[in-house]
């Protein structure tokens, strides 16, 4: 089994391709895991701040998507 496949191709019938992962799944891994080393560019982000940035950015996008895709004839929908 190869570890790399074209973005739309599943690697197995049951397993979704991580190249198509949601942003929240990517950020769980890229901000919440991985090798954590101090770089030379010091940014005042750590732990809780990273989580806040992540959630703020994602909830903003969820709201934007809801506004974009809500059908125009359903006035009761959020």
């Amino acid at each position, binding site marked *: *089994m*190869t*570890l*790399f496949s074209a973005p739309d191709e599943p*690697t*197995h*019938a*049951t*397993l*979704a*391709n*991580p*190249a198509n*992962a*949601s*942003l*929240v*799944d*990517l*950020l*769980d*891994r*890229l*901000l*919440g*895991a*991985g*090798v*954590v*080393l101090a*770089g*030379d*560019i*010091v*940014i*005042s*982000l750590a732990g809780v701040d990273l989580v806040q*940035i992540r*959630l*703020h*950015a*994602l*909830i*903003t*996008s*969820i709201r934007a998507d809801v506004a974009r895709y809500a059908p125009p004839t359903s006035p009761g929908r959020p």
Partner: protein
Amino acid sequence: MSAEHSHRAGHGRYLFGFARNLDAASVRDAPSLGETALEVVTSGDLQAVVCDVDLAEFGEDALTENLENLEWLEHVARTHNEVVLRVGAAATVAPARLVTICANDASVRTRIDEQRLPLTEALDRVQGRSELSVKIYLRQQPGVASSGQDSDVTSAQATPAGSGAAYLRRKQEQARLRRDAGNRGTQVADTIDRALASRAVASRRLTPQDPQLTGRSEPMIANLAYLVPTEVLDGFSSLVEQLQVEHSPVVLLEAAGPWPPYSFATLD
């Protein structure tokens, strides 16, 4: 392999991750951030995969602002993930956290040297293995109203004497059914986790995601990651299918992978 990269004013090195026995030619056509291609910095038997970035975009002040910009964040995260997937296809990879930026290649090399032992251990831990994610959602049970639905049960009804007690009994019964459904869901999730963990060399529980983020109405009750040897990926995947069939009335499963080993190639 790049020649010694001296510090260019206003530029830094974005660090994607570390590898062992990586042939630089294998990542030549991979995506990159900024204007230039990926490069490989070597120290001993370990490599760091980097690219040149402009500090006007990746410096301290710029990052603080850009990390709040969803489109920018998504572009960087997806590119970082694609690079790590590509490196992982060619060698054992330990992904770095997002936006780790060093001044120059000498600094990158120093990081490798300072962390050589924990990096080696992390790479040993994940060599020949991939991460698989399994999310477990609790299905809506028939006859069990979600907690938001109780409140409209009686607002339209008249309230003759005695119906107040009946209303309270109905509410308590609904709360009990929800608790039982939740407990059953937890038991099923634990059963599934035990079965999958028996096929993996390690597992982690990540934070379950809020319905606002998942796009599903069913609540996520477990967000799991497993470190699985490559040769048993097919068997693991079949087991996920089997567990879905077996527990279908109670839970919905979503599996993805193989991922680079983000949750397991950590420095302890």
